[in-house]
């Protein structure tokens, strides 16, 4: 079965082997069984269980739990029904800009689908269709809500946190790593200082930021008064609240990008850079032609990991604004938690499932078309 590997299982097993021999012969199973069993029981089983909750009305009663099948009502309530404004945003009067945006994105996605139809396999095509459907759906929601002047729901708040957060954090984190990779003194000192926020408890970060961002008793009160903004309340306007949330999230997560990109930058051979310097290349040329191609593999992986974690954001909005004003800083996880607190377990599970679908489709698309696509191009 696995010739050439150490510990290849002997083909013949004698009947009078000892327990130790039996254990060793089945060591392959014993090594992996605990991990697989744990994941099956505490990750896969609950995920299936969640489906049951998501299509049911669940009630806690005296004798336990009563579950009644209601079909897809919990989902349709989010997508078309009473919770639509909360989840998707207000989509009623569609403006011209929103319509144009939707048509352009749809056209572009369909053209991409048509172009790749010639080359890809059946499974690849199904995957592309799912990605395309998600892209068109998201484009419609964005066009009908934000671009038509309506409010956005928790779906787009989450996406804003992911896309904007990842983008800004990647730029600043990579910039800091570039600065830190210069020949400077005290590099290890800066490395320790810059790494700390990542490890600080997110909940502690939430409360610390709530104090620091306080507009009457926080440290920036004199600054705001000096600028003439003492009447400005960041937590009253949806977008300023979201941006403050992103500043605080960046405080915590830039270190992650920084530390990974710094390691990647230090792995770029020094003699390549020095040779280019001697040849008279400018700093931008060195970065574009030598450094960037070598750190791109780490960059896309780091972005993927960061995006996966960003979809789970819950502590910061919960503590800093409680999801307010209204529900405009609520992420999907927080939305689900609030619905759970209102004892509507079915709807809570449905929202959690919608988050799972969104995360998987977005991350899998990124992985397939960016990470693997880059690998394929570099091999070709």
């Amino acid at each position: 079965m696995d010739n050439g590997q150490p510990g290849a299982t002997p083909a013949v097993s004698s009947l009078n082997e000892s327990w130790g021999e039996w254990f060793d012969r089945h060591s392959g199973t014993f090594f992996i069984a605990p991990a697989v069993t744990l994941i099956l029981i505490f990750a896969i089983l609950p995920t299936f269980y969640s489906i049951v909750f998501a299509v049911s009305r669940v009630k806690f009663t005296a004798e336990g739990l009563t579950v009644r099948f209601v079909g897809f009502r919990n989902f349709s309530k989010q997508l078309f029904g009473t919770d639509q404004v909360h989840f998707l945003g207000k989509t009623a009067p569609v403006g011209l800009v929103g319509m144009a945006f939707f048509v352009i994105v749809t056209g572009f996605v369909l053209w991409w689908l048509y172009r790749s139809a010639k080359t890809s396999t059946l499974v690849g095509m199904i995957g592309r269709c799912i990605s395309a459907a998600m892209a068109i759906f998201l484009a419609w929601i964005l066009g009908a809500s934000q671009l038509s002047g309506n409010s956005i729901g928790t779906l787009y708040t989450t996406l804003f946190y992911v896309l904007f957060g990842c983008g800004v954090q990647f730029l600043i984190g990579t910039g800091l790593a570039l600065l830190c990779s210069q020949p400077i003194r005290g590099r290890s000192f800066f490395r320790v200082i810059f790494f700390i926020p990542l490890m600080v408890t997110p909940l502690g970060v939430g409360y610390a930021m709530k104090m620091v961002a306080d507009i009457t008793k926080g440290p920036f009160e004199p600054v705001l008064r000096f600028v003439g903004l003492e009447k400005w309340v960041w937590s009253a306007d949806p977008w300023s609240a979201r941006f403050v949330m992103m500043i605080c999230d960046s405080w915590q997560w830039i270190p992650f990008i920084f530390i990974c990109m710094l390691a990647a930058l230090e792995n770029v051979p020094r003699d390549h850079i020095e040779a280019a310097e001697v040849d008279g290349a400018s700093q931008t040329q060195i970065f574009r032609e030598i450094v960037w191609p070598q750190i791109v593999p780490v960059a896309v992986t780091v972005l993927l990991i960061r995006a996966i974690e960003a979809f789970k954001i819950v502590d910061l909005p919960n503590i800093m604004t409680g999801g307010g004003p209204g529900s405009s800083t609520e992420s999907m996880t927080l939305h689900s938690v609030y619905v759970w607190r209102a004892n509507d377990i079915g709807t809570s599970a449905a929202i959690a499932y919608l988050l799972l679908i969104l995360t998987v489709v977005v991350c899998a698309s990124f992985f397939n078309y960016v990470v693997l696509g880059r690998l394929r191009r570099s091999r070709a």
Partner: protein
Amino acid sequence: MNQTPFKFEKTNRSLMDLLFEPPSVGKMSPVAKVVVYTFLAIWSVFVLFPIYWVVITSFKDAAAVNQGPFYIPFVDFQPTLDAWRSQFNSDPYCDLSSIARQFYLLAYNSVVFLISPVLSLDPMEPQICKIYLAFTNSLVIGVVSTVFCVAVGSMAAYALARIQYKPKFGNILVFVGLALLTIVATAYAGIPWWVSSTVALAMFFFLARAFGRHFRRSLGNGDILFWIISQRILPPIVVVIPVYVMFQAVGLLDTHLALIILYAVSNLPIVVWLMHDFFVNLPIELEESAQLDGATRFGIFWEIVLPLTRPGLAATTLLILVLNWNEYLFAVFLATVKVQTMPIMVAAKNAGEKGVFWWEMCAVIVVMIIPVIVMAILLTRFISRGVLLGAVKG
């Protein structure tokens, strides 16, 4: 011929050159140096300021917090220890013997839980002030869960790096189908969970034995590894609701065991991912020669492989310990009274009738973040040696 060796003239450069050109290859010009250090200094202040603010707030009294911002202790406000004292004055049982009793309680209650199917004893109730309770809970849950998770995860990672597995595709489909049937039967038909799961498990082994050999397609190690790592994508909120119901059914709500297991499972993907990378890069010859000398697989793992990956193991353990210490979402669902962890305790400070006592909360936050900052400093030592980041490049 008298050839003078080429010499770089430093003296006759213009002022602009002196400022903007690097003195030699691999060094920076003075202006660039100033710019770089300025940016790094600004960022250091940005990073350290919130932590500084929390620390000084914990030494303020009510007046110093409420009458507007004060920045520097002894200069614009007089620091007090009130916030720290009130953590201990408000409750009784804030002494060493309470802590000792708490650790004894943990051991005693786990024994009580283990023998509960045979003999039912009353578990002990905690008698300890809140901050010690939260700290010991966080410590015990964090450490036990980390050890458990790293042990299970590195075993699986080693197995995936060295042993070929070929799970049949059909068997997996059978398992998924049976699991769904079990859940539906338990949820809608009201069959007790232990009956339905036992029946399903028996049926799975029967079906796998009977029909397993007829399935052709099988998966490889790469697929298993990807499956385990991809569990990290799963948002915890999807899992936590059913897990709450599952733990309620077996009476594990508000116990240490529940949090230990759940934390371990949620961090398993990270451990497997990082440790797999270390194990794959080990030279296989050592293990082969030990194999020839008659060592068992577990012996090889324990005595050869693990010591070789000690730096990676230590770094992974530290990382998981920090993640466990910081966890909040699972704790808020599953820990209500007895197993309050530090984050829960901080969050509980938020709900007061007389408003939030920020100075007291800050004292607890300081207690909560000091261990993680120490661990972060230790962890950067590993990272700067290149441990831990190999997996990212994959």
